[in-house]
């Protein structure tokens, strides 16, 4: 696991304190969306379809700090939209770092190289760069030729300047496991601290509704990708969450583990689903009908979800919640997960699923 000891210690002691105090529901990561505007127009994105007057709105630094204080989570993720389009993003990041929050600024990195001089390296600040695979796959995924090269330039510059950098990939139906593994090699060679990955989620508002994997297919894909692991690969994620993706563990969703705050308020019930908003975090915790969400609820909106914002908190709380969990995390960190069937699929890719993205890429070959 690529996460620094100081961050793991902060999270472990936070979880322990919550458990000792008998707190039933507590957040681990605040998903703080300072704006919805983006400088990409990815087909199928479910996050940025709003009228222009909504896309122009931003959270002020004061609103961000108030949300962080109210929530109390030790980590803050800044997704969007594209956070580097926010005119006061440096002030927001500096304020969060001053509060000793571990900040993940999620960016497509189109502006990263240009804006890096405005930021100061810190153990509390990580640039989490959206890269969905190797050059051809990433460019096709974000609907922008040349997007990969710009992002990689930003990553290399950030690493050179001493920033913590991770990559953040979302995989959809038809992702090529061999290419994904090649991508892991490439990003580790760039000097990043670790890789973050997740299956795509079928946002109800996503225009592209036909290419989201169900759980069975997602497990097969991630078993093929993550088995027979190279020791050079580092993941900025709980090893237990990766085991969940591979189908080795069962977890229920912990939607309050990664609460989302944006210009509309506290989003009910989670970062992905929009079933309404509350004015305060306490109201979110107290009035949301949590039993109506997660796979076990049978809610169709949660049927395909295996996304990190709901299931990684479950894995982290499991890992830091008992000696057994701690041992499993330590073991998972060093295992390579040998699997003959996964190796066969890698060596004979025609036996594997061949979904929409791979087919579309083949159609574009001239």
């Amino acid at each position, binding site marked *: 696991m690529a996460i620094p000891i100081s961050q793991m210690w902060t999270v472990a002691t936070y979880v322990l304190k919550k458990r000792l105090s008998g707190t039933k529901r507590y957040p681990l990561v605040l998903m703080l969306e300072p704006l919805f505007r983006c400088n990409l127009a990815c087909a*199928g994105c479910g996050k940025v379809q709003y009228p222009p007057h909504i*896309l122009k709105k931003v959270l002020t630094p004061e609103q961000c700090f108030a949300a962080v204080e109210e929530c109390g989570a030790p980590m803050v993720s800044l997704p969007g939209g594209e956070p580097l389009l926010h005119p006061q993003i440096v002030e927001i990041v500096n304020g969060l770092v001053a509060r000793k929050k571990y900040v993940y600024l999620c960016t497509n990195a189109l502006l990263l190289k240009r804006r890096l001089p405005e930021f100061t390296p810190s153990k509390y600040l990580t640039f989490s760069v959206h890269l969905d695979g190797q050059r051809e796959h990433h460019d096709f995924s974000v609907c922008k030729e040349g997007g990969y090269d710009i992002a990689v330039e930003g990553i290399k510059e950030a690493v050179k300047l001493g920033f913590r950098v991770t990559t953040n990939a979302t995989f959809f139906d038809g992702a090529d496991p061999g290419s994904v593994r090649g991508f892991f090699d490439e990003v580790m060679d760039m000097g990043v601290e670790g890789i973050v990955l997740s299956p795509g989620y079928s946002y109800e508002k996503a225009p592209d509704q036909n290419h989201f994997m169900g759980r069975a297919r997602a497990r097969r894909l991630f078993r093929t990708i993550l088995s027979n692991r190279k020791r050079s690969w580092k993941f900025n994620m709980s090893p237990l969450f990766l085991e969940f993706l591979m189908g080795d563990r069962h977890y229920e969703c912990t939607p309050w583990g990664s609460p989302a705050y944006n210009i509309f308020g506290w989003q009910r019930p989670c970062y992905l689903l929009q079933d309404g908003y509350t004015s305060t975090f306490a109201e979110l915790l107290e009035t949301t009908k949590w039993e109506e969400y997660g796979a076990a609820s049978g809610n169709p909106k949660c049927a*395909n979800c295996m996304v990190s914002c709901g299931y990684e908190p479950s894995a982290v709380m499991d890992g830091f919640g008992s000696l057994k969990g701690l041992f499993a995390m330590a073991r998972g960190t060093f295992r390579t997960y040998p699997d003959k069937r996964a190796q066969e699929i890698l060596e004979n890719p025609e036996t594997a699923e061949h979904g929409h993205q791979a087919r579309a890429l083949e159609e574009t070959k001239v």
Partner: protein
Amino acid sequence: MTASVQKYSLEQIESLELAPAADHRNLEGWVPEISNEDDLRNALEKAFDYRGDVTLTLKSGARIEAYVFNRQTAATLAESLVQYFVPDAPEKRSVSYAEIARIEFTGKDRAAGKQWEDWVRKYNERKAAGEKGIALTPEALD
């Protein structure tokens, strides 16, 4: 979630190959007929889901063009409310269901279209035409 919403068993969910897709009906231009309380509640639920502006006509005659981002339903219309942003003001506003007489889905549906297949088709056409640096760009905000 109401009992009428289809539920899956955990076994069904675990064996899904593809995610169940949401039903996308383009509501742009729709003016629902409101003849009773249920009609009003259903129309406002659709307005909450809609990714474009709507125009609310109040019983007072006032018209509000707004993006409805939240609704809080209660036992009575007077206790239920929608929250919205209007284009030319920074603050959140709200209005009781009981004050609303008519709803028009007047704004462009920002979630409509933009399918993956559309991107593949455009890409192939532009590539065949010899274009370099092919990309989709966000719509202008002004």
